[in-house]
């Protein structure tokens, strides 16, 4: 199963290495990882997407909690939440396809963040399905470059598990 886990950590040097070292040292898989400061500059938040059976995920969350610099671990599998990821796609459509590409970007609520004689750079934000769908469509028009931020997630307000 794929899990999105958010990890609140002390914003100290070496913390990222402790977390990634835990995953590599114990043979856990990281699909994506994003890190950033929170409102409190002493604290960072990491969002990690990982896969494993229940026993592995249980170990991952316990092992994360055991790290001295980890303040809190949330496995979003257990929580109603929103997930977002951003991608930048640079496409080089043929002249006749340009309008179509722009139209598709609009349908997906993408933004053109750069445009040149040959290429458009489109920014798309959304959940995984939306991004996958958009990327699939763009493949037909010639993707030149592609980069994604990795997922971030947040629990919805006031949701308690029944």
């Amino acid at each position, binding site marked *: 199963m794929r899990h999105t886990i958010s990890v609140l*950590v*002390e914003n100290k040097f*070496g913390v990222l*290495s*402790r977390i990634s*070292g835990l995953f590599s*040292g114990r043979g856990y898989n990281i699909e994506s990882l994003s890190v950033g400061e929170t409102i409190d500059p002493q604290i960072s938040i990491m969002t990690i997407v990982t896969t494993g059976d229940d*026993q592995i995920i*249980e*170990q991952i969350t*316990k*092992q994360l*909690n*055991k790290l*001295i*610099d*980890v*303040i809190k671990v949330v496995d979003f599998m257990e929580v109603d939440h929103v997930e977002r990821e951003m991608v930048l796609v640079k496409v080089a459509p043929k002249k006749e396809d340009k309008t179509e590409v722009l139209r598709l970007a609009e349908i997906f609520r993408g933004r053109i963040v750069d445009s040149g004689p040959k290429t458009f750079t489109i920014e798309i934000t959304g959940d995984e399905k939306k991004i996958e769908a958009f990327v699939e469509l763009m493949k037909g028009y010639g993707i030149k470059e592609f980069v994604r931020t990795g997922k971030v997630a947040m629990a919805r307000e006031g949701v308690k598990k029944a």
Partner: protein
Amino acid sequence: MKKSGAEILVECLKREGVKHIFGYPGGVVLNIFDTLYDEKDIKLILTRHEQGAVHAADGYARASGKVGVAIVTSGPGATNTVTGIANASMDSVPIVVFSGQVPTMLIGNDAFQEADIVGITRPCTKYNYLVKDINDLAKTVREAFYIASTGRPGPVLIDLPKDVTAGKTDFIWPQHIQIRSYNPTYEGNKWMIKQAAHEIARAKKPVIMAGGGVILSGASKELKELAEFMDIPVTMTLMGLGGFPGTHNLSLGMLGMHGTYYANMAVQNADLLIGIGVRFDDRVTGKTASFAPNAKIVHIDIDPTSIRKNVRVDVPVVGDVKLVLKEILKILKEEVGKEQWSAIRKSWLKQMEQWKKERPLTYRYDEKIIKPEFVIEKIYELTKGNAIICTEVGQNQMWAAQFYKYDKPRRFLSSGGLGTMGFGFPAAIGAQFACPNDLVIDIAGDGSIQMNIQELATAVINKLPVKVAILNNHYLGMVRQWQELFFRERYSHTYLDVVPDFVKVAEAYNAVGLRATKPEEVEPVLREALKVKDKPVFMDFVVDWREKVYPMVPAGASIDEMLFEEEKKEEKKVRAVK
């Protein structure tokens, strides 16, 4: 008045109650060593290798329960500590290691004797620090001792750049330590504790499996009370030996790969297994799929990651073993009387006796050649079970675990998790500093002792009466045993062609060297050694190289699939251990 970083460090160590430091000097720790030169309250013990220093600090911690301390220089000094740190980490031993580092402005420049020791030791420490600002020094030391000794204990490393120890600042001792992201769970969950108590009350064939956690949390008394109150047999892991008295009639001795027949049979036939302060290591469980197949498992441990890591658990209790056992006992005592138990357990305990009779721990005594087990038995007899026994790793370690009975905790110091050859001798030195009035004996092999033999100098200079019993078979015996059993007797690189004359080695260091080549010489050599009070003694016991450790569970097998020594028809004398 401003103090130098080195002075602040030493002042912090004093306030932490440190009396002994094991260390080795070098360029970037000169300021620290210079400060220690005039220090009256702290003794620095110069080892002959940094690995020895860390093992000594480890042995000191294991024997005393206090935090062990080592100080080494940067680069090679620091990297030489890695084995010692990993060893302490696997066995949850509280130590704090200080490593020197090149000045902060040179870090990352590949300076002379620079190594990223914080990076290197990240996976094998409980936590580690690089102190970049002298004003953080006191707080860091305080935190390090706190982290090392609380929760599930472990090693902490502090990397000290030269400019931090040389610089000056005001000394401020933090009164309280609060780390928001570090809050070990001591009190077990009430509901889980109740569940555990009820499972124990219901069980017809329960077994307690006690591990190192019992010793670390000082729960021997509670464990004994529980076992006796409920008539539950107790088996111990290697790390748990001494947590429950080995001579107690409820004791089944050690379980696992080289555990006793009756301990392994008890676990495999139990309807309830109570794991206390254990982590279900593969050397204990054998094939996990068929481990304790009929038992519900109650698992008490302070480290939540130990639970359900290797085996399924029915009732997990995260908490300090001592506190949890107290709670369980309270429930059992208040809710039901003792009489009921004895009746239920009678047939189960009888079964134990039968297994013990069926296959006791044995070896074949020989009149011509010394059997290694015989040496251990003699040591046990002459020390009346009162010595602190350290071991190296391999056959010597297993025989020391099987044939010496440990009645008290912190009397058996052995590298359990990492299996570090060369651990025992420096650990014995550390233990002797921690317990100057106790008899400390390292049970070694001729392979292992050569891995840290240089520490003989440390023992001689400090007039330590540490005894080393070398079971000399000219082989890396445990590996040879596997080659004999599983690799068609192809003894690839396990024969130690040249073994030094250990008597001469001892004498060269101005220690005492003794040798026994025949069984009748064993006792006189031991008696002679025990008389020596101001020097280390090497006892070279030339033993039967064919001897193997039995019972043995082959790798990947269930723990009831044990191999035993083949019976010989002409055999007359089979000696059983009392």
